[in-house]
């Protein structure tokens, strides 16, 4: 099983390249049992979403 440290790298890379099938499996297995890494994933998703809003030029989805 991958360590949490390795998982954080994989989570970041998943935003930049398509993960290999084996990587996806290992990621999924880890996230199923690790709350810390699951939150890490949510946080990275949130950061990406915030960046998308900045790119849209608005201050929020309401605009």
């Amino acid at each position: 099983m991958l360590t949490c440290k390795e998982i954080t790298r994989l989570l970041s890379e998943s935003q930049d390249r398509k993960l290999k099938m084996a990587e996806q499996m290992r990621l999924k297995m880890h996230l199923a049992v690790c709350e810390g890494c699951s939150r890490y994933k949510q946080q990275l998703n949130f950061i990406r979403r915030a960046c998308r809003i900045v790119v849209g030029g608005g201050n929020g989805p309401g605009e």
Partner: protein
Amino acid sequence: MSGGRLQQDAPYLAELRRDLLRFASLQLRDDQLAEDVVQEALMAALAGEEDFSGRSAMKTWVFAILRNKIVDAIRQRSRSINVSSLSPEDDSLDQAFEALFEPNAHWQPESRPRAWGDPEEALHQEQFWAVFDACLKHLPDNTARVFMMREFLEFETNEVCVELNITSSNCHVILHRARNGLRRCLEQTWFGPGERAC
């Protein structure tokens, strides 16, 4: 809306200029240069005769012009900087990252990522965006540069590598450092102590 109509709407123009300036200065990290590219982008927009169905189409168009100007400015500058060199600030971000884990590379109990409550709510708050900008500005220059090319200018990762002349594995390392730095900064300054994973 044509360029002519935009010109007559001073309050809207001021607001648009403020948004453009924020976008440019975050990425260029040079206020003077940011002023210059925003000025150029606005001039180009005002000179255009294109018709837009509304403000949002107009805004998208001006941002697209600005994006190209920023990319040009980054290209020009990237010839003179070495993005792969590690600054002391990068080094300290890496050390802070390492410190999140136990020797067995699993989370330290006190640094395990926390629940951020309802982060969607934050996106509607003016104050949150001030914190978000401050956290971005807090990232080391080169790390921020790579991150913003990827996330704001929406380059593919391999394009970033080519533009900045770095290897793809280095690119992944830098993006990971940026995201973790940003995550930690937001957690510490906005989301607060929160509830910990047990």
